[in-house]
């Protein structure tokens, strides 16, 4: 079944089947969902890498598909995240008010994603985008908050609408909806216009500044197994649109001489860096682990934008690599948090502590994920960030570099918070009964751990695939890579060697450790507390307002954007009320006035 059309129909069919199976028994339905997702992922992986998928259509004649390396890159990542997450379903579904529809919408949205990346027609792209939005929009409120779904939907819809207007502008100029021809066919002011519209769509979907409000709301309040999909997979749709705009449309505008970069790209890079800074600062401040990771997604969205704006091979490769690395890292982190939330029922850091003693594997999964997220070797995030750094330095984008470095160091701060507050520290007595996640949930955890390391140690295959994308979509030089190394402007990175040496270092440390006298095991409560006996472990757990001195410095400013959007919604409502007052009056006289005004206006205008 290597035909895209069949895959789509299969997903839609199994979505319907899963609805009834879940109705029967949520476990059976979820297992079915796992197999359906797995089937799709395996089909894609088996045929897609070499572009061997069948794109002919017979049953859905109004669709047309074509396969590209770029599309496949996204599709395989997202399908993978879907597959991984589906393993969590059996243990979460029963908690949701409309569990029957959960698997249905989940599979439908996957169908939307596959369609979106394989279509070669703009309107179909929009069709699939909208389908993804509304199916996922109904998944989010099954979690904690309805407003989150509204916010997600509002911003996504804004993005789609900008995209659609852009599509129609292209259509007006080119006369067709073909994606490749359309993007190639525009120029001059039109292309600037389309660029802006597409970038609005990209920013909204990627959840970057200034369209980021939905991100923490949606990620933080979505059902626990759905947050990894949102962060690891769905926001990447924005990156895809971003590539179309920044790389493919790439309007000709004024060029900033010092860094040899078009103004449009520089502005996007600047927005990206604002996004990095704000995301980092907000993440440092956040108390909810999932919202914290959501803000980290915002900041990583900024990295992706910076990478694609820098317009060279390394940067482009770094951006794509970062998409992969961040998808894996954030999926891993969110899944670990989901496992904790399943066991304890909360994601608030101030309510948690010492989970490491009950859930060591989940802890390890989180640790590896955040190492990658913070861009520390030997994980995938390091390679991608390294490539992005190279590009930033190469271009000499100093102001952007400030943000990039700030975000990179800041990420140490925020990823460490859940680690310390959730997993480390004192073990709370209310969680004594907690057990490690069940085996089925550990399977994806292990797989993602392995892949996080794999992407950080053996970049060869990935870089090779990215080189295909570079060749397909750009005129950039491909990135040179051997099994373990990547070469960029300012030298070669030997990822494998770093991992090896790290291993050697740890081995040496371990030898030192093991050779010395064995330590005496003491309780966690048995600490240096200046001889005071503290009876309550909560009092010894430092996790509330972890970075209080730092947070205080930007406490006031941190609500600006939220206030802005609240004010915007309020203003729209005010306009609505005004309009109601003006047009929907209970007084007939008002209507009469309007009728007269219109008559006089028309007659007057025409007479003139």
């Amino acid at each position, binding site marked *: 079944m290597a035909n895209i059309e069949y895959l789509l129909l299969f997903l839609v069919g199994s979505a319907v089947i899963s609805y009834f199976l879940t109705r029967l028994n949520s476990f059976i339905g979820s297992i079915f969902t796992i197999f359906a997702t797995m089937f799709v992922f395996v089909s894609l992986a088996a045929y897609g890498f070499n572009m061997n998928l069948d794109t002919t259509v017979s049953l859905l004649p109004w669709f047309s598909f074509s396969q590209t390396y770029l599309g496949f890159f996204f599709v395989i990542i997202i399908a993978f995240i879907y597959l991984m997450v589906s393993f969590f379903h059996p243990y979460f579904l029963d908690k949701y008010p409309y569990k029957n529809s959960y698997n249905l919408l989940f599979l439908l949205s996957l169908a939307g994603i596959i369609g979106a990346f394989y279509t070669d027609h703009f309107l179909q792209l929009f069709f699939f985008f909208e389908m993804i939005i509304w199916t996922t929009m109904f998944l989010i409120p099954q979690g904690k908050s309805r407003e989150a779904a509204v916010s997600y939907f509002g911003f996504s819809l804004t993005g789609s609408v900008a995209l659609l207007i852009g599509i129609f502008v292209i259509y007006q100029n080119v006369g067709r909806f073909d994606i490749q021809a359309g993007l190639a066919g525009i120029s001059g002011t039109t292309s600037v216009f389309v660029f802006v519209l597409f970038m609005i769509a990209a920013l909204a979907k990627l959840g970057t500044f200034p369209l980021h409000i939905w991100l923490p709301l949606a990620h933080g309040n979505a059902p626990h197994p759905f947050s990894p999909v949102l962060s690891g997979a769905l926001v990447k749709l924005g990156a895809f649109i971003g590539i179309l705009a920044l790389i493919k449309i790439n309007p000709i505008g004024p060029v900033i001489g010092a860094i040899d970069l078009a103004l449009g790209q520089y502005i996007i890079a600047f927005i990206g860096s604002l996004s990095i800074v704000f995301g980092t600062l907000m993440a440092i401040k956040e108390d909810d682990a999932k919202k914290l990771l959501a803000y980290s997604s915002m900041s990583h969205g900024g990295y992706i934008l910076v990478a694609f704006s820098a317009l060279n091979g390394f940067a482009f490769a770094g951006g794509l690599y970062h998409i992969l690395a961040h998808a894996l890292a954030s999926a891993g982190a969110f899944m670990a948090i989901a496992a904790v939330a399943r066991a304890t029922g909360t994601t608030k850091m101030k309510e948690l502590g010492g989970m490491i003693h009950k859930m060591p594997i989940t802890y390890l999964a989180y640790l590896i994920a955040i190492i990658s997220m913070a861009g*520390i070797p030997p994980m995938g995030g390091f390679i991608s960030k390294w490539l992005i750094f190279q590009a930033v330095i190469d271009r000499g984008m100093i102001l952007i570099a400030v943000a990039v470095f700030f975000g990179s160091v800041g990420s140490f701060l925020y990823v460490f918070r859940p680690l*310390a507050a959730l997993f*480390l520290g004192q073990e709370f007595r209310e969680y004594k009964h907690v057990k490690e996640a069940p085996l089925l949930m550990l399977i994806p955890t292990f797989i993602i751990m392995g892949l996080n390391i794999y992407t950080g140690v053996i970049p060869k295959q990935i870089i090779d695939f990215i080189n295909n994308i570079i060749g397909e979509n750009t005129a950039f030089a491909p990135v040179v890579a051997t099994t373990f190394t990547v070469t960029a402007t300012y030298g070669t990175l030997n990822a494998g060697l770093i991992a090896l040496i790290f291993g050697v*270092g740890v081995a040496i440390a371990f030898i030192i450790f093991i050779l010395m006298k064995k330590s005496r095991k003491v309780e966690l409560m048995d600490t240096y507390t200046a001889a005071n006996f503290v009876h309550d472990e909560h009092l010894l757990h430092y996790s509330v307002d972890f970075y209080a001195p730092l947070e205080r410095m930007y406490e006031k400013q941190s609500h600006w954007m939220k206030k802005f959007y609240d004010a915007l919604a309020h203003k729209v409502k005010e306009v609505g009320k005004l309009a109601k007052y003006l047009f929907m009056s209970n007084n007939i006289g008002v209507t009469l006035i309007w009728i007269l005004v219109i008559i006089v206006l028309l007659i007057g205008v025409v007479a003139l």
Partner: protein
Amino acid sequence: MIVNILVGIGIALFGFALQTSIGGINRKIVGRLQKRHGPRWYQEFIDIFKLLSKRGISHGWIYDFGVIMALGGIIATAMFMPLTVDIVAFKQFDNFFIFVYLLAVGMLGMAMSASGSGNPWASIGVMRALTTMLAYEVPFLIVALTIINVSDSSSLTAIQAFQQTAGNNWFIIALPLGGLVGVLSLMGMLGKKPFETYIAPAEIASGPMVEYGGKQLGMLFILHEISVFIEVSLFVHLFLGGASNIFIFLIKYFTVYTVVNLISNVNGRFKIDQVVKFFYKWPLLLAIIQAFIAIYLGWVI
């Protein structure tokens, strides 16, 4: 490859020995300045070996695992460090970013272990350490960006070679503002006063270290010495033209460490938010100005 790894281990070991000795000597120097005798120069070796041989306590597996990971990460970082242009374990692969980020693995391990000890002082210390890091890293990285951009390589040996080429000055002279920022950042990295907020022995009971004793503390001491070695060497290679042979390296290393140590001894201690404000005010501004001047205007002395 085996040989390279052995060289690397040798460098790490050398770094440890070097810094421990120089650290001891500095304690002596500072003692003399304060009209004390000061300890013997090998006092730090004695402390470390004594600690390693003692029986300590453990607060659970993460407490031990974190220490191992921390020391392992630091040793690994040191193994990449070139001593001179020639003495380097892995030629071409001594990338600047490895030192910044591999060092972070060690820091992460230590932070993990400290938080895992369950002592709130330790967590506060970790918080302060990370916040300090956020403060000093960004100006430092901007200066590093300038250096990499100017010397056209991010390999430390290549940067050394660039400075040693005839006609090129050491970067501390070529980029004077950047050099100043480098010194300040180095003090932050080393946790010297006024940036020693995260240790603050009398205030938060030595912060991250509060729970440690025995071999764990011994290993953390080793870690500390090696990380100082890495940071000071990084400064020497980036700003002081590196070294063409081992003696020049030793001289430069000793000078840098001693000067920084002396400066720090006449300072008080910042509060943690003052640290952040300090670094984001002048050093960052200077670093950006330096980068503008060097990259866009091409004014490199």
